């Protein structure tokens, strides 16, 4: 649940999603679920000249399994907290 928890804090922030098929989509993260499916709003394609077919699309739903990277602003990440959260996750895992 760590990544789910993490992405929840990015809701309403601008992110760039790089898909496994090389398309990069920039937009406002609207929602995320446990599969890390993403819902983006006000999207624009970063490499639009290469992939113009998303020009008319305003918002979209991305299946989590097709995502390669999610780029985000470093300001929106609390690294210390993330370290703690990772430890906690590891503790939970090892407790099982």
């Amino acid at each position, binding site marked *: 649940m760590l990544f789910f928890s993490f992405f929840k804090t990015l809701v309403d922030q601008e992110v760039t999603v790089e898909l496994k098929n090389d398309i990069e989509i920039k937009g406002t993260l609207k929602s995320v679920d446990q599969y890390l499916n993403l819902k983006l709003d006000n999207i624009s394609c970063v490499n639009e000249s290469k992939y113009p077919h998303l020009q008319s699309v305003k918002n979209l739903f991305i299946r989590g399994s097709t995502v390669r990277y999610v780029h985000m602003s470093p300001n929106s990440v609390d690294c210390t*907290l993330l370290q703690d959260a990772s430890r906690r996750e590891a503790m939970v895992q090892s407790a099982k």
Partner: protein
Amino acid sequence: MSFFGFDPSAPPSSRRDDALSENIDFQDTYDGLGEQLDEADDAFNSDTFGSTGPIAKDFNFGTGAGPNSAPIQPQQQLRQAPVPQQNVSYAQAAASSHDDQFMQELWGASNAPSHPAAAETGPEAPKAEKKILSLAEIEAQLTNIEHQQQPQYAPPPPQPFGFPGMMPPPQYGGYMMPPAGFIPPPGQYGQPFPMGQLQGMGQIPVMPPMGISGLQQQPQQPQQPQQQQAPAQQQQPEALPIKVGKQQPVQSKQQPHLVPQPSRNQPKADLSQFPVLGGPKENKPSNAQVQLQHPPATSQQQNAPQQQPQEFNQFHRGQNFNRGGHSGHHHQNQHQHQDLTPEQQEKAAKRQEKVSRIMSYSGIMNPKDKDFVTRFQLSQIVTEDPYNEDFYAQVYKVIHPKSTNSANQQVSQQHNSIAQAYLEQSGHRLGGRYKRADVALQRMQQQVQKAVTVAKERPKLTQYAREGALGKISFGTGKKPRQQLEIISKAAQRKLEKEKKELEGATNDELVGVPKKDRSPSISAPSRVTNKYSKKDIMSILEGIISELMNVESESRTNSEVDTTQLWESLRVLEQPSSSGDDEAEVNPFIQCLNYNKALKILSRLFKFLSREQILTIVTLIMSNLENLSVVKHGSYTTYESKKVPETVVKLVELYSMTFSKVLMNAVLDFKFNEIIGLLVILIEHNNVSYVSTTKIGLTILTTLLSRAELIIGEGTISATDLSEWSSCYDELFTSLESRIAAIFPPNPEDIDDGSSRENYVWQFLATLSLGGKLSHQRIIVDEVRDEIFGVMSRAKAIDNTDSANLYKKQNLLNNLNMYLVVMGLVADETEIKELQS
């Protein structure tokens, strides 16, 4: 609604209202009608519904209230050429399976394609006139009938249609009414109705078989109903409603509008009398009402303009029973259609089609359905322990309140409130933050609560081997959507093995015990004088501390009283005494931990949970181990040939100033005077003070202790013995520093103070030292640092007064210097030192 014989105890419209109302028990979504179905005659389904052939995959699940669906059609046909049907509703789809016959029987003759009428309107007509009712309309009409039927049951037995008491009237209103005149051949026809009762009522003799005829007929042969009567009975026993309808007029001559019917010549008129939904209607007392009931058929076939108003009435009435938003829209359109040019009409029709295409799927899910989906999704991700499993998000929210983008937030909160809450509250304590949550939110919160309980009850099944299947089916859970590799760490494996062997017997125990001693020094500590710690040991101790700290923190969120003994033990402060100069590996593990960034970062969090005594113990330990801290050990320029501290150490020193120094400063505030003296004494005893003073951290620690002591003295509540203790302690300190004071300045003063910072720890220390000393002490200090004082003045002078960008540096340099000089009543500018005027 008595379609299949189930009990529509509530009228359909009211049931729909239910769906909209709040506070529904979700479990009640299913009204259980399915269980009441009489499935005895399912074998006749194909007769009832026709053999519709293969069902296509593009079945339209929409409401079917498209622009071309039934209600509008008659209108269009009335005034303009038949419009080809573009949108096929499911009813139409069913009809287009060319089972006109059964449609006719099912929906009534007037709705079925009428061939005589077709002959009148032209070759295109049959297609156009296919009047197919959407389910909603049928419902609407049924409701109508039901309402109007009510009086029908009031009349006493003489009434031909009276079999009251035989069946609950509202349930079997209209459709399933057994045809009184119909005697089913026992073998051929099942027993869906209590036929015996029917017969007992003596209805049969009264009934002229002729009555069935007209309606029983296919529309193609409206003229010769009687002849077909008997075969029709037998061949199409399912066409009950129609028969009923037909029977009545014949049976009861009391009904005025039905009387003329048989005598009429025009089949059209005849047909028009057979209303959309079969017989019961005909029992209506007033003719006018009846006409309102079934005008579509009438107008359709007669094209009579004077009937239009009635038709509209009918149309609107039907529409009003239609699903929510549609009716109004259609209603309006209908009016518009009347006085529009064909062009406009076409336009409007197009628009309507578009709208209906969009609308056709609206309302497919009612609020309960949506709730169900929400709950299902929630149950996957909710957790009882959000601070553990959703730690990052929960704590992040607390640490970073949404002040930064509150404007954004508000806007998005409105649009996104459900999703937001869904994400934020998945398992979180409910309602706390959303006191004024709207209804939908409240409902969702209830959903969350339910979901938590559901998730609790759900068995934690991760694998399932199905019988006959080759592999195992593994389920992802919400928390682990994909199966993770199950890897047991070596430590855990060893532990497992150990437990296994312990079970096997004591002899094996010794074998395991040997390697264990090497690994964990703490356990074997009593037997040895000193332990050596590898980096790995220190790291694992440090991780242990952090884990304990996190445990304590999460406990403190729910409990005000927290047990910190485990945390204290994990620090291992008392595990091994050590002092400066000991072998690096043998230093107390807590001191060794302090050489790592992550230990420093948790210091302030850690100290929050420690008692004053525990903190004092730790500080004492640090004082005796100052030179074992790498910031002191490696933090002095004197140990480097280049006289410069390496970058890595500088970074660590910076981190110390940010964390350790602040924590220490806070801790010292709690210490008593004699405790501070004790700390200073320990520091002097165990460390080379002149060396420590050449490091930034060492000097800062000295400054902190001295200034705190001086503050307490300033309060004037110190006893004489304490004061004498203090002066002897100060003397000792001063002696160890004397003649080396200038060395606390690093060779490149720019390194520590280029004027850009408002603080200079060296001058701070000198100021504090001077403040605590007597005049003689101050003189010695001034003598020793004279060069530095003038050095600063000349550096300040070197910054040109016109260089406005660097002017502040000049000021800072002088201010920092003056902080020291002021203690002795002096003040310096860039050219000279004067006595302080006050």
